[in-house]
């Protein structure tokens, strides 16, 4: 089993677990927890896409290869930096989503007194 295969399986399982948390729960806060876990799974998937076997972090260390800049021999062994940049953004946005969702839950509780989604029948007639 290679590292990529293990982490792809882990990310799929996390997405599935988060989805189950969203579907099978009636408590709104548990739904947000499931959403968070699915978000985590997606982030792990994105970072694993960029992983290269035996790769090091994409930071140039002085003295590796070329004396002045350390460029030449480092490119062969570095991990892909683009998925990491995207995931950096995605994690912060995921927190923004969690904050808005939980504020909505608190407003729903203040307005109706319940956070049980099957009792929230305001839109049904």
């Amino acid at each position, binding site marked *: *089993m*290679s*590292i990529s295969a*293990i*982490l792809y*399986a*882990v990310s799929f*399982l*996390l997405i599935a*677990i*988060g989805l*189950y*948390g969203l579907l099978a*729960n*009636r*408590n709104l*806060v*548990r739904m*947000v*927890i*499931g959403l*968070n*876990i699915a978000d*985590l799974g997606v*982030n*792990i998937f994105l*970072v*694993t896409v*960029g*992983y290269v076997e035996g*790769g*090091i*972090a*994409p*930071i140039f260390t002085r003295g590796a290869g070329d004396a002045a800049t350390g460029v030449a021999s480092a490119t062969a062994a570095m*991990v892909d930096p683009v998925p*990491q940049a995207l*995931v*950096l953004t995605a*994690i*912060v946005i*995921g*927190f923004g989503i*969690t*904050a808005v969702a*939980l504020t909505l*839950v*608190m407003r729903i*509780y203040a307005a*109706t*007194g*319940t*956070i*049980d989604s099957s*009792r929230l*029948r*305001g839109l049904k*007639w």
Partner: protein
Amino acid sequence: MTTVVVLVVGVMVVVIALAAVLAKSLESAVILLSAVSLLASVVFLLVAAPDVAITEAAIGSALTTVVFVLAVYRVRNAAPQDRNTPMHAADESSLAARAPRVAAPATTDTVTEQEKEVVDA
């Protein structure tokens, strides 16, 4: 060697995430979510992504947990409704307080129906 470590940490992440979704009480679910976040940060470190690991540890374990604890504190009275029990009477009254708004369109409907009958006749 790294493969074994990644396997162990990956299995722990999945097991603790499953425990967080299936937890009995809301507070333990929130704490388990914080633990999943911390282990995911370790996974990011093992895949040679230190920036992502620092960001995930700071946001997932610190800020998200705080926001969840604030929300859980606020809705604490609703926690017994985790387990399929019916709402107590106080909530029925809060739902009943919105009834007049539901009744108003019905009266306007009957008015227009009468008008239509007059016009048709």
